[in-house]
């Protein structure tokens, strides 16, 4: 055991032993982790780009609490929609985690239902995003190349980054449905259903990215 002897020599020993580096980790899971690491770099680059143009642009940056305010009961409530969207996505992470748990307990039916619930949350998130976009484009006249409230880069980075994230969520919904269908067909009956955990990794990652986008776009 590495823990017993301790020290970096033991860690290296463990890592470099034959067949696998990560003991007990299925190929798919290892692959998903590596993919997510790579994807992290994509979002990091997008956010770096966003911060750079926010600094270089010559015009003032619009105030997010004005842009993203929503009329409720006759009052403009800042960030109302975004708060709901964020809640939905965080909740979907919860249902996803439950699905993983059900999978390992081999409770196939519950797992499928929870995956479908997760997909439904995801789809509603995308739906709200469509609503938000249409509001920004149609009502507030924000375009990727210009807007009336200041820096044209505001629209450009907002649509690009949330769009790219939205694509991830949409792809995730398709992925969830596809896997749910495969589980239903019995494709994974002879396994431990670690496929659900792999699915979960992706879904949690997409949620985590949203937290960063939320912080950078709406709170800054």
């Amino acid at each position, binding site marked *: 055991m590495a823990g017993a002897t301790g020290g970096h020599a033991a860690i290296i020993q463990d890592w470099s032993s034959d*067949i*696998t580096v990560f003991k007990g980790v*299925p190929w798919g899971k290892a692959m998903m982790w590596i993919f997510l690491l*790579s994807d992290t770099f*994509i979002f990091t680059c997008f956010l770096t780009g966003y911060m750079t143009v926010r600094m270089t642009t010559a015009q003032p940056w619009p105030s997010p609490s004005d842009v993203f305010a929503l009329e409720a009961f006759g009052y403009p409530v800042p960030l109302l929609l975004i708060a709901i969207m964020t809640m939905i996505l965080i909740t979907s992470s919860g249902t996803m985690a439950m699905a993983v748990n059900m999978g390992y307990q081999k409770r196939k039916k519950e797992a499928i239902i929870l995956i479908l619930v997760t997909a439904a949350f995801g789809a509603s998130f995308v739906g709200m995003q469509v609503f938000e976009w249409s509001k920004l484009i149609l009502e507030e006249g924000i375009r990727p190349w210009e807007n009336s409230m200041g820096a044209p*880069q505001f629209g450009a980075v907002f649509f690009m980054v949330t769009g790219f994230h939205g694509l991830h969520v949409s792809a995730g919904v398709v992925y969830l449905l596809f896997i749910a269908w495969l589980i239903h067909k019995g494709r994974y009956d002879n396994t431990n259903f670690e496929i659900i955990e792999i699915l979960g990794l992706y879904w949690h990652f997409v949620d985590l990215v949203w937290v960063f986008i939320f912080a950078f776009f709406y709170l800054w």
Partner: protein
Amino acid sequence: MAQAEIPYQEDMALHHPHSWVTKYWFSQDHKVIAVQYGITAMSVGLVALVLSWIMRMQIGFPGAFDWITPELYYQSITMHGMIMVIYLLTAFLLGSFGNYLVPLMLGARDMVFPFVNMISYHVYFLSVIILMASYVVPGGPTGAGWTLYPPQAILTGTPGADWGILTMLLSLAVFIVAFTMGGLNYITTILQARTRGMTLMRMPLSIWGILMATVLGLLAFPALFVSAVMMILDQLIGTSFFMPSVVSLGQHLDYSGGSPLLFQHLFWFFGHPEVYIVALPAFGVVSDLLSVHSRKNIFGYRMMVWAIVAIGVLSFVVWAHHMYVSGMHPYFGFFFATTTLVIAVPTAIKVYNWTITLWRANIRLTVPMLFAIAFVITFVVGGLTGLFLGNVIVDVPLSDTYFVVAHFHMVMGVAPILVIFGAIYHWYPKITGRMLNDTLGQWHFWVTFIGTYVIYYPMHYLGFVGVPRRYYENEIGGASAFYPESAALLNETITIAALIVGAFQFMFVYNLVVSYFRGKPAGDNPWGATSLEWRTPQTPPIHGNWGDKLPTVHRWAYDFSVPGAKEDFIPQDVPHDDDHGANRT
């Protein structure tokens, strides 16, 4: 929770081909995919070769070929550069060698996800098609230089600014998707699917090089992907990520507030690791070639592994050494010069270890060995000139001159290509079961090695004189101080050498084709090598590689000339109590 079962290559389900199409086109066999990558990369490489002729003809004999317009010249340098760096070198070293060697050298049946691997090739093929489509879209391919710096890349003063740049960026984005699919496979296979006894520190250095290069690729290509997306948006719908207010050829454009430097940072955050994406597999492969053909273990294996890892990690903190005179904050120069020169240390160690491997060896000057030795000397020149350009103040007079052109061609053009050649001569017998023609191989080597040296060594001196790169014509209105008459003569010489060297590459292709049908049968292990790919039950290996049982590894890949052993090599899967009469302790 029950421990998930360890998937093991032994039980892997393989999709055996049922028709010609699934055997040779939509094949899931890593060896077929490797050859597909290789043939595609080589074909597109020949296009790049012809493009280099066009530019050399213009530089060597300005005015002699009036069909070479400035547009064609700039389009040619751009396409040459991008094809060589991405579509040839990256695709060949990782797509082709990575695919072929990883499962075989690790004792695996195939990549962990053969289907994804197959898709990877076809997406790569698509990216090549999109790239080549540049030649049929209105305006032709982009002429922005392979660095594609905005604002220039998308303004009318540059050829292909409306369509060519879009096909280029789209092709790059598609290539990155292909690379990601392949790369995930290589890493997962190397980390999680080795055979029994194959510890990380028993892997041949080729695999270490491929592993680290793939890690770099997966972390560096995102930056290129993001910058491609942003530039497509700038060009297509008029966002201003990279575009400040500009007056392009007298016209005010609707851009404002973007940052051209942001693109350069993103591009080089990809671009510098890219150098090592190309170099590290070459380092690994050449280590193996040197060891096998000098019948001696690679010197300082552990140091070599750590050097690969160190170079890989450091390569992420040196990118702005491409931007010393870009107008970024000058104080960055101190940091990036220091990190850049630090990288020289592990790199130098690798060079020392290659040469020390030759000490008291038993060197067989086979064609692969010739290429390997030529690589070392070429790489020494290219690496040392890198110390000029990495040291911030020394870079100031030399940046954007022919010194840079000579440097990067030596270090990441000629050097890896020499390794690719050497590797093809080395593994061709395993891939096809036949040897390549030796006489043609010797000719190919001598002309390529001496020719490229004649091309690139003197080119450094043009840089000292101050000849800027990417000039369609140097003499406008009489000779200039930076371009004396003698420099024109030198350029003529270089052009002639380039034409000859280029022509001999077609002879190499001829050799590849003819030897496939008429080459001497190779046998299972013509070089007396120790690594697992030479231990397959069949040559060429069949789908699944290993028959019923995977090999078990008992030793590192470098047991050459072990004292007391009967033969001068002991393959990795030979147990210790059976190693030809002598145990190694």
